[in-house]
């Protein structure tokens, strides 16, 4: 491995900007770190270069632990967004700088300079000053300068950010070529997905300090695991569907039968939508009828918006309200041949089919705030935690007044306080797979405690916790609690359970968390851990809600100050095999 990051964390004023990032980069691999501004990608890159010290974790370059090595001894080449050329030195001197400080003989320096200038196609520019070159040329010089001392890895921080589109594309090609030629392990940071697709062997998507997903560009595009990645890489219609034995059903019309339908989040790419005159003409899977609301001609592709029938698919986003009455809007893009086969105009009624959908493995689909009256439901819906999760997950937060026969699909949310425990018990025994008990005024948590009451519920709990932590910047700790009276021999089993949990979280969900084994009583230890942090939250897993001892949970849910508690009921959790 050329670059190994292990649980790298960097905080600014207490808030993590890079949060538990672990990553391996192979020799010769071109990795692009992609993310919106403020996602921590540049900070992570600077941490690899040694320009920023990290608070926790390890950085290794070619098997050498460099966590506490300063940047000048890390042997990295770094390219800055604004070139950072030494303006008072000629191009030649800029390139030779690294060799000069290493006291390399002048003949050798000159040979290397010539070689590098040839590599970046700037031969004969030795005596020019940076100010006499164009932006693209200056960035080439910066690349040559960063390569002069034959670094082991090349790190580039938005190197094309300050250039115009045409030059950007040209330079992109040059850099890819150089990288291949030298077999140089490279990490490039950008917020431009087109750039990431053009350059990367692998793309790592960062959001709010976390590395959400890392994989081959086409894998990330066709099979994203998270809502954020599916919408950040290309356009996507995120729809709520219900898993049935015959596949995913999109209709929002209520289904017959007593079971709460298992809600899933599916992505339908605009280019995978098929439009036809009527249901029978659709060659792919029919979704719903709709009406064309907007047509934009965009050269090679045509972009349309189709208003779906009101009993059609429910969008995941936007809408804290969900869709009321009116159907949802579907983004569609069509190629020229498709347009020729079936021209459409605004106002036309069409049948909509889906050629392919991808069901996100995310365990949290949507939220429903359940309360006794409308005011309470609205207060709950607007609580910081629910509001944030709804916005960041780009998912629906519906409201429901009073109890129905069954718990709502997705994740019901109820307010902590009096009667909370009873309501929680009712939901968990009436079909809820997850339940969020949230104090309406509690701030966002920054310390999440994860605990499972039995080993069977671990998988589902970790999945939900990972999904939660992808959207809330918080530290995670997985607490194992060993009864104080238990034998020493059981300690090994507890420890193993803990380590398994940690590696499973990392491998399956990319979630890096601390683990700790404590002797004591479950209720006391959890309460102690939660009380130690002002903004803590509990994620509690169980595979048998009937076996929950409600007395201690009641004191947690109805006491003050109340903390958010997310209960995962794995008795009805998703089957392992994913269609």
């Amino acid at each position, binding site marked *: 491995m050329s670059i190994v990051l292990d649980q790298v964390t960097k905080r600014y004023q207490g808030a993590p900007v890079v949060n538990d990032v672990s990553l391996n980069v192979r020799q010769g691999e071109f990795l692009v770190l992609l993310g919106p501004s403020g996602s921590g990608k540049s900070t992570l890159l600077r941490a690899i270069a040694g320009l920023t010290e990290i608070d926790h974790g390890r950085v290794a370059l070619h098997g050498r632990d460099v966590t506490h090595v300063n940047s000048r001894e890390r042997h990295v*080449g*770094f390219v800055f967004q604004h070139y950072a050329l030494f303006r008072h030195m000629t191009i030649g001197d800029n390139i030779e700088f690294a060799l000069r400080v290493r006291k390399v003989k002048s003949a050798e320096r000159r040979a290397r300079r010539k070689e590098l200038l040839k590599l970046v196609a700037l031969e004969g520019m030795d005596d020019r*000053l940076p100010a006499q070159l164009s932006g693209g040329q200056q960035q080439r010089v910066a690349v040559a300068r960063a390569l002069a001392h034959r670094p082991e890895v090349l790190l580039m921080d938005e190197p094309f950010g300050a250039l115009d589109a045409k030059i950007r594309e040209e330079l992109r090609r040059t850099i890819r070529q150089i990288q291949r030629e030298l077999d140089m392990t490279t990490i490039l940071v950008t917020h431009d997905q087109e750039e990431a697709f053009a350059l990367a062997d692998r793309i790592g998507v960062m959001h709010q300090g976390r590395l959400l997903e890392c994989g081959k560009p086409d894998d990330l595009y066709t099979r994203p695991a998270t809502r954020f990645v599916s919408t950040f890489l290309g356009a996507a219609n995120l729809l709520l569907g219900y898993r049935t034995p015959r596949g995913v059903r999109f209709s929002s019309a209520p289904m017959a039968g007593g079971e709460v339908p298992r809600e899933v989040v599916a992505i339908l790419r605009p280019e995978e939508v098929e439009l036809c005159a009527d249901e029978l003409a659709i060659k792919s899977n029919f979704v719903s009828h709709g009406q064309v609301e907007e047509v934009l001609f965009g050269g090679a592709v045509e972009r349309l918006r189709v208003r779906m029938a009101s009993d059609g698919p429910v969008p995941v986003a936007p809408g804290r309200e969900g869709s009321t009455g009116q159907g949802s809007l579907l983004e569609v893009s069509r190629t020229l041949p498709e347009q020729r086969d079936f021209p459409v105009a605004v106002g036309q009624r069409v049948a909509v089919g889906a050629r392919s959908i991808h069901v996100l493995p995310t365990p949290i689909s949507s939220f429903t705030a359940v309360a006794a009256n409308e005011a309470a439901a609205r207060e709950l819906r607007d609580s910081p935690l629910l509001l944030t999760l709804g916005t960041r997950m780009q998912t629906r937060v519906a409201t429901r007044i009073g109890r129905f026969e069954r718990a709502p699909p997705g994740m019901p949310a109820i307010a902590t306080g009096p009667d909370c425990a009873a309501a929680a018990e009712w939901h968990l025994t009436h079909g809820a797979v997850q339940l969020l008990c949230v104090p309406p005024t509690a701030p966002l948590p920054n310390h999440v405690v994860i605990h499972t009451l039995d080993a069977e519920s671990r998988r589902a709990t970790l999945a939900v916790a990972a999904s939660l932590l992808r959207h809330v910047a918080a530290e995670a700790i997985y607490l194992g609690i060993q009864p104080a009276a238990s034998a020493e021999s059981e300690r090994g089993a507890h420890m193993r359970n803990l380590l398994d949990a940690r590696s499973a979280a990392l491998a399956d969900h990319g979630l890096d968390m601390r683990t700790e084994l404590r002797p004591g009583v479950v209720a006391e230890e959890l309460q102690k851990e939660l009380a130690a942090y002002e903004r803590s939250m509990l994620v509690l897993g169980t595979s048998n809600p009937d076996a929950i001892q409600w007395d201690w949970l009641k004191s947690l849910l109805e006491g003050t100050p109340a903390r958010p508690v997310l209960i995962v009921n794995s008795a009805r959790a998703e089957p392992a095999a994913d269609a």
Partner: protein
Amino acid sequence: MAAAWFRQPSILPGFGLTLGFTTFFLSALVLLPLAALVFKTTSLTWSEFLDVVLDERALASYRLSFGAAFIAAAVNAFFGFIVAWSLVRYDFPGRRLVDALIDLPFALPTAVSGIALATVFSPTGWLGVRLQQLFGVQVAYTWLGVVVALILIGLPFVVRSVQPALVEAQRDLEEAAETLGAGPFTVFRRIILPAVLPALVTGFTMAFARGVGEYGSVVFISGNLPLKTEITPLLIVIKLEQFDYNGAAALGFMMLLVSFLMLFAINLVQSWSRRRHSGPVDSGRRVERRRRPRNQKAGA
């Protein structure tokens, strides 16, 4: 329309107006009085003029005035840089207060600072006594006192010209040098100093010019002993008090001349160094340059 051919295209009107003001004020307030000084001097004959300006007492005062100003400016260039550096690069409690204090020598009437310095450094003064006891050094009423006064007066000039240059110097340049393997000293010498040098030279020049002309703060601490601690501006005042207007004008003319020559020289050095940093005229590089064509020929 006369100025049309060198007029800069600008959206804002008023070129004629602003240039008119500039020439008028420069003429009325700077050039005219200076011309009057030169004119007044010409009322002396050559021998009279030389008698005045080459007088033993006058020569000693030149040495003191220019020498002390030069030393003070050099000291200020060094310490002023450090002050500016710590103000720009570090955040410490009271940084804003220190930043404001820098300007105090500007704002204070120079006589006040002169009296303050004299009180502290006089042989009976708080610092003067200790310096005398510990090092046997007397500051007040010697040339050292003059230097001390000029350091106080000149410091803001250096700090205020270096500060913006340091702010502007990009941090990523230093980081770039660091990733390329440069140690802190190399980063300072090869990256920071070249970027700040022009501002430093400007600050030095201004501190020096101010020092040459300083009167108020010096006369209290220097003791004004003829041939020893008498600065040229004081000599001019003495001449004026004796109604020797022509003599005063002659000395003033000499100061004008020397100041002008020194500023001119410093400007030359500065523009030369600017050209050096913006073009390959370094001796080492010149050798390479001469060598290269020959190599190319050999290769061809």
